[in-house]
C-alpha cells in the first residue's frame, strides 16, 4: 500500500541521501584515502574491480562488500537487487548507502533469504527498501543487527523471520527513521529487541504481525523505543499486538494505538517481567510504570483506509507532549525536518509544525490578516460603525424646542481607524455625507475627541471644507484653535456645500422639492506614530455638534455631551434648555428630550414637519423604556415604520 506517508517518506529520504552523498564525495575528493574508499554498485556496471565508478560498478552489493574494509562507503545505484543469499557485512564497519533513496534502491530477498546482516557499531545501511526477506528459523527477515550497527532511512516491508520479521536487534544497534510495515514473525512482527542497548527511534511501525509476542515490537530483555508510532499491528490474544515489553524495555514519546489481537480486540501493549517503563506515551489503556502518558485520540491527519496519514493535526494532544533527549539535536524526524519544534518534542516520528505564514512586510501580522501586507507601518482597518454608515440627526432651534423631525441636519458618518501591528493608531479617515438639512440657518458641523488624552500636537488634520475668511479659526495642524480637547470642524456652512433647489427650506427634506446630491467630506487625521491605542483615541465616542447660524458661540450637541471650549455656556438654561454643567447634564429639555440623536446605522429620516414618533412606530417605546424596548427601532423591520412619512 503506497500511500501518502510512504511517498512523503521517500521524497524526504531521496533528498537526505543526495545531500549526504554530495558531502561525502566532496570530502573524499579533498581527503583522499583518509576516510576510506568508495565503491559503487550498479546493475548496469561493468563489474570491474576495484568498482570505483558507476561505469565499473559491481553488480551486487555483496561483491562490493567483499572488497571493503572499515570506513569504506558503498554507493548503490537505482534498481532492484534480488538476492539468492544474504548481504553479510560481517564485522566490517562500512556504510552501504543508496544514491537516490529508498524509493528506487530495492533489496529484495525474494522470499528466499534474509536481506542484510551487520555486526559492527560503525556499520550503516542507509536508504533502501528492504523487502521479501525470509529467515523463518532465525533472527531478522529484513535485517539482523548483531552486536551493533545502524539501519536508517529505510522502508522495511514484507519480510519474515522467527524473531524480528523486519529487523532483529540482538546485542546492540539502532533502527532510526524507518518505516517498518507488513512484516511477520513469531516474536516481534516488525522489530525485535533482544537486550538492553538496542534502540529504535523515529519509526513508523504498522501492519506487522507476530504469531506469539509483539505484533509491532517485541523487547525481550531490553530495548529502548523512542518516538515511534505503532499502529494496526496484530498478535495473539494477550501478547501485545502493538508492543510487548519485557524486563528492561523502555518506551518514550511514542503513539501506540489501533493495534488489535487476533480476536479483533484492541490490545496496544503487553508487559512481562520487571523493569519496563512507558513515559510520555499516547496509548490506551494507560500503561503501568511511567509518567506523562495519555489516552487521548492522537488526532492523526487521516486514518481512512487507503489514505492513512500518521502526521499529527494541529489539535493533537501529542504535540509538545514528549520528553527531550540529547540525541534529538543531531537527527531529523521521519520527514527529514527538525526533530524539536517549539521547545518540546512531539510524540511519534513526525514533528508537527505549522509553516510560518507569509508576512511580506515583516510586521508580524500574516499577509492574510494584514490589510496592508506591503506596509510595515500599517496592519488593520477598524471601522466605526462596523456595519456601514451611522447617522447624526439634529434639531437646530436650541435652546428652543424643535419640531422633532430630526432633519435640520442629517449627516451619515463613518470612521476608518488604521492601526499598526502593535495596535497603535496610525490615522483616521472620517467620512461625513450630508444627506439633508431642513434648516433655514447656515449651520456648520464639527466633532470633538472625547477626552484630552490625545495631545493636539500629535495630530495633523486635512480634508475639511472651510471657506477662506470663515468665522472658524484653525491652527497650523488643522485643529480648531482655543480648544482644550482636539476639535475638528468638518465644514462651516452646509449651504455652501449644497444649495437649496429653489423650493422649500434647506435640502432634501421636502419630497416635493428636487433632490440634491449629498455632499461628502473626508477628513484625514494623522497621528504621531506608535503613540495611541484605539481606546485612548476613543473615536467611537466622538462628540459631534452643529454650529448654529455661523454663530461660533452657539453649539448643539447630543444629549449629555458637553459643549466645546468655544461655546457660550450662558445660553444654558434659556428657553427650553435645562442643561446643568455642574451635574454633567447638557442639551436636554425639562422632560429629558434631546436636540440630537446618533444612530448606529444609516437612518431614514422623517420628511419635513413630521415628528419622529409619527414616522417610527416604536420610537416612543424605545425612549420611554430607557432604550430597553425596541433597541432596533430605526431598522426597516416589518411594522416599524410609516414609509409615507419618511424621506
Amino acid at each position, binding site marked *: 500500500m503506497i500511500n501518502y506517508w510512504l511517498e512523503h517518506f521517500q521524497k524526504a529520504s531521496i533528498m537526505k541521501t543526495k545531500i549526504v552523498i554530495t558531502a561525502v564525495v566532496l570530502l573524499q575528493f579533498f581527503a583522499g584515502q583518509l576516510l576510506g574508499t568508495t565503491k559503487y554498485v550498479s546493475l548496469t556496471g561493468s563489474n570491474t574491480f576495484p568498482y570505483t565508478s558507476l561505469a565499473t560498478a559491481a553488480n551486487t552489493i555483496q561483491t562490493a562488500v567483499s572488497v571493503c574494509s572499515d570506513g569504506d562507503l558503498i554507493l548503490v545505484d537505482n534498481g532492484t537487487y534480488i538476492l539468492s543469499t544474504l548481504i553479510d557485512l560481517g564485522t566490517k564497519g562500512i556504510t552501504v548507502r543508496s544514491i537516490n533513496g529508498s524509493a528506487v534502491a530495492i533489496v529484495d530477498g525474494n522470499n528466499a533469504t534474509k536481506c542484510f546482516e551487520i555486526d559492527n557499531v560503525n556499520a550503516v545501511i542507509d536508504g533502501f527498501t528492504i523487502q521479501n526477506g525470509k529467515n523463518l528459523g532465525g533472527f531478522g527477515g529484513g535485517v539482523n543487527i548483531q552486536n551493533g550497527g545502524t539501519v536508517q532511512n529505510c522502508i522495511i516491508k514484507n519480510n519474515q523471520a522467527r524473531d524480528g520479521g523486519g529487523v532483529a536487534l540482538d546485542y546492540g544497534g539502532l533502527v532510526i527513521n524507518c518505516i517498518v510495515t507488513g512484516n511477520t514473525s513469531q516474536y516481534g512482527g516488525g522489530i525485535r529487541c533482544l537486550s538492553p542497548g538496542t534502540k529504535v527511534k523515529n519509526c513508523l511501525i504498522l501492519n506487522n504481525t507476530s504469531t506469539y509476542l509483539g505484533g509491532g515490537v517485541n523487547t525481550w530483555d531490553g530495548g529502548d523505543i523512542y518516538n515511534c508510532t505503532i499502529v494496526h499491528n496484530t498478535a495473539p490474544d494477550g501478547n501485545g499486538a502493538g508492543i510487548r515489553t519485557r524486563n528492561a524495555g523502555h518506551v518514550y514519546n511514542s503513539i501506540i494505538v489501533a493495534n488489535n489481537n487476533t480476536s479483533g480486540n484492541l490490545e496496544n501493549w503487553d508487559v512481562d517481567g520487571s523493569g519496563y517503563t512507558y513515559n510520555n506515551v499516547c496509548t490506551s489503556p494507560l500503561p503501568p510504570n511511567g509518567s506523562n502518558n495519555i489516552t487521548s485520540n492522537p488526532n492523526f491527519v487521516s486514518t481512512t483506509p487507503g489514505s492513512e496519514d500518521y502526521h499529527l493535526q494541529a489539535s493533537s494532544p501529542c504535540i509538545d507532549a514528549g520528553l527531550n533527549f540529547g540525541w534529538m539535536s543531531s537527527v531529523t524526524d521521519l520527514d527529514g525536518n527538525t526533530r524539536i519544534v517549539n521547545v518540546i518534542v512531539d510524540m511519534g516520528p513526525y514533528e508537527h509544525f505549522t509553516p510560518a505564514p507569509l508576512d511580506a512586510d515583516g510586521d508580524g501580522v500574516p499577509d492574510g490578516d494584514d490589510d496592508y501586507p506591503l506596509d510595515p507601518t500599517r496592519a*488593520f482597518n477598524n471601522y466605526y460603525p462596523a456595519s456601514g454608515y451611522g447617522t447624526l440627526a439634529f434639531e437646530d432651534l436650541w435652546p428652543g424646542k424643535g419640531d422633532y423631525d430630526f432633519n435640520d441636519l442629517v449627516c451619515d458618518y463613518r470612521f476608518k481607524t488604521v492601526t499598526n501591528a502593535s495596535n497603535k493608531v496610525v490615522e483616521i479617515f472620517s467620512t461625513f455625507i450630508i444627506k439633508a438639512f431642513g434648516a433655514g440657518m447656515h449651520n456648520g458641523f464639527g466633532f470633538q475627541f472625547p477626552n484630552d488624552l490625545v495631545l493636539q500636537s500629535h495630530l495633523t488634520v486635512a480634508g475639511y471644507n472651510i471657506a477662506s475668511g470663515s468665522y472658524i479659526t484653525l491652527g497650523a495642524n488643522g485643529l480648531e484653535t482655543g480648544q482644550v480637547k482636539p476639535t475638528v470642524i468638518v465644514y462651516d456652512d452646509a449651504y455652501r456645500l449644497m444649495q437649496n433647489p429653489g423650493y422649500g*427650506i434647506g435640502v432634501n427634506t421636502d419630497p416635493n422639492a428636487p433632490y440634491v446630491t449629498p455632499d461628502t467630506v473626508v477628513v484625514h487625521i494623522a497621528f504621531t506614530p506608535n503613540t495611541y491605542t484605539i481606546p485612548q483615541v476613543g473615536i467611537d465616542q466622538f462628540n459631534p455638534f452643529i454650529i448654529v447660524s455661523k454663530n461660533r458661540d452657539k453649539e448643539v450637541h447630543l444629549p449629555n455631551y458637553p459643549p466645546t471650549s468655544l461655546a457660550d455656556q450662558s445660553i444654558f438654561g434659556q428657553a427650553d434648555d435645562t442643561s446643568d454643567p455642574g451635574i454633567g447634564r447638557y442639551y436636554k429639555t425639562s422632560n429629558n428630550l434631546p436636540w440630537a440623536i446618533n444612530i448606529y446605522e444609516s437612518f431614514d429620516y422623517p420628511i419635513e414637519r413630521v415628528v419622529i414618533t*409619527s414616522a417610527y412606530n416604536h420610537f416612543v417605546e424605545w425612549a420611554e423604556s430607557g432604550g430597553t424596548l425596541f433597541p432596533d427601532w430605526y431598522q426597516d423591520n416589518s411594522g416599524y415604520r410609516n414609509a409615507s412619512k419618511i424621506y
Partner: protein
Amino acid sequence: MKTIQFISILLVLSLLGFSSCRKMELKQDDASASKSMSDLKINQAFKWETTRIVNVNLTGMKSGVVYINPIEGNYCFNKGFLSSSTGYNTVITIPSYVKEVKLVFNKQTYLVPVVDNNLVYSFK
C-alpha cells in the same frame, strides 16, 4: 409723513412676521404623531444611545490576529493583534441589541456573550 412712517414700520413688522411665520409653520408638531414628544416620559438617566460601550479583555496561549465579529453579518466590529504575553485589550462600541459576538482566533471560532458590557475570553 406720519403715514409714511407708519406704513414703513408696518412693512418691516410684516416682513419679520412673515419670516417668523414661515419658520414657525414648518416647525409645528405633527398632529398625526402617535404620541406628542412633549408627552413622553423619559427617565433622566436615559442617554438616547443606540449603542453600548464594551470593554474587551482577550488572552491566549499563542499570539495571533483576533477578530470580533457579529453573529450574523459579513463585517467586523474590531480586529487586532493578540499577544500571548499581553493579551488584547480594547474598547468597542456595538449596537445595543447585540448580546453575543463571534471571536475568530487561529482559524477557530468562538461564540462569546457580552456580559455587563464586558467581553472576556481566554483562548487555549
